[in-house]
C-alpha cells in the first residue's frame, strides 16, 4: 500500500496488539495527511480484530495430568531401557555363543571339505606320475613281429610213439 516507514512501523505495531496512545496520535496525523490509506488501515484493523477474536481451542480438563502421565510413562520406558542396557549382556552372550557355534561348524565343514579335496588331488597326482613313467617303456614297435617270433620259437609237440620206438 505505502512504503512510508512511519506507516509500516504503525502497521507492524498494530499486528502485535492495540496501538499506544502516542502511536494512535501518530496514526491520526498520518491518516489526515494520507486519506487514501484509510481504507487499507481499516481492513488491517478489521483483520486484527478478527484474528484476536478467534476463540481458544477446546482443551481437555485433564491436559496437565495427561502430560504428567505421559512423562511418567516416558521415564519408566527410559528406566527399562537403562536396565536393559545393564543386564543386556545375558541375551547377547547366548546369541554370541550361538553365532560362535554356527561359525565353528561352518569352519569345520569347510576344513573337512578342503582336506578331502587335497587328498583327492594327491591321488590324482600319483596316478598321473604312474602314467608319466610309462613313457620310458620300449616303443610298441618292438612288438610288431611278436606273433611271428612266437610262432618260430614254438616247438611241435613231442612224438611220443617215435620216441618209444627209438628207445
Amino acid at each position: 500500500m505505502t512504503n512510508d516507514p512511519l506507516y509500516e512501523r504503525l502497521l507492524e505495531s498494530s499486528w502485535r496488539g492495540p496501538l499506544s496512545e502516542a502511536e494512535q496520535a501518530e496514526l491520526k496525523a498520518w491518516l489526515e495527511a494520507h486519506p487514501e490509506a484509510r481504507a487499507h488501515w481499516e481492513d488491517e484493523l478489521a483483520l486484527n480484530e478478527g484474528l484476536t477474536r478467534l476463540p481458544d481451542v477446546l482443551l481437555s480438563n485433564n491436559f496437565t495430568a495427561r502430560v504428567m502421565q505421559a512423562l511418567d510413562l516416558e521415564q519408566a520406558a527410559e528406566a527399562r531401557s537403562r536396565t536393559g542396557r545393564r543386564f543386556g549382556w545375558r541375551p547377547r552372550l547366548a546369541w554370541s555363543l550361538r553365532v560362535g557355534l554356527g561359525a565353528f561348524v561352518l569352519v569345520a565343514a569347510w576344513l573337512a571339505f578342503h582336506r578331502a579335496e587335497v587328498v583327492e588331488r594327491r591321488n590324482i597326482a600319483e596316478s598321473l606320475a604312474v602314467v608319466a613313467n610309462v613313457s620310458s617303456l620300449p616303443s610298441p614297435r618292438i612288438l610288431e613281429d611278436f606273433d611271428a617270433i612266437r610262432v618260430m620259437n614254438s616247438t611241435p609237440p613231442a612224438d611220443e610213439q617215435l620216441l618209444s620206438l627209438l628207445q
Partner: protein
Amino acid sequence: MLLVKQGDREAFSQLVEKYKRPVMNLAARMLRDLAEAEDIAQNVFVQVYKSAGRYQVSSKFSTWLFTIARNLCLNEIRRRSRHPADSMDASHPEQEDQPLQQFEDKKTVSPPDRLLHGELEAKIHQAVSELPENQRLAILLCRQDELSYEEIAKVLGCSLSATKSLIHRGRETLKQKLKPYLRSGVWLSPE
C-alpha cells in the same frame, strides 16, 4: 524453568498450566485436527521436560517452547504428507463450510449474534488454515504477546525481514479471502 531443570515436577506442572493454551492453539491451528493437536501439545511439554538440561538460561523460555512446538507440528505435517491415510480426522473438502474445530464458548451473546460470529470465526479460521505453513505459523506466532518480532524470527529460523515479509504476505492473502467480511464491519462492532 530453572526448577524444572533440577527435576522439580511441581514447577513443571505450573509451566504446563501457564503455556498449555497458547501451545494448544498453535498446534490446533497448524494441524487442523484437535485430537492430533492435543497429542502434539502434550509431546511438546514432554520434550521440554526431557530437554530441560539443554535449555540455556540466556534464551527466553517462550522462544524455546514455541521452537519445540513448531518443530513437532512441522514433523507431524511432513509425516501426514507421507502417510495421508493416517489422519482420519483431518478436514474433508466437502465439509469446508463447516467449522473445523471446536472452540470454547466463553462469550454470552444473543443467538443471532452467536450465529454470525460463529460463521465469521469459521471463515477466518478456514482462511488461516489455508495459508502456507510458514505464513500461517508466522501469523499465529505474531499474535503471541510474549514474542517480539526478533523472537518470532528465531522460532521460524529466518531473518527478521523474512519474518515480517511472511506475516505481510499471509495477511494480504487473508484480507483478499475475507474482504466481504472485513468490509462488513461486523468484527469491529462492540460485543
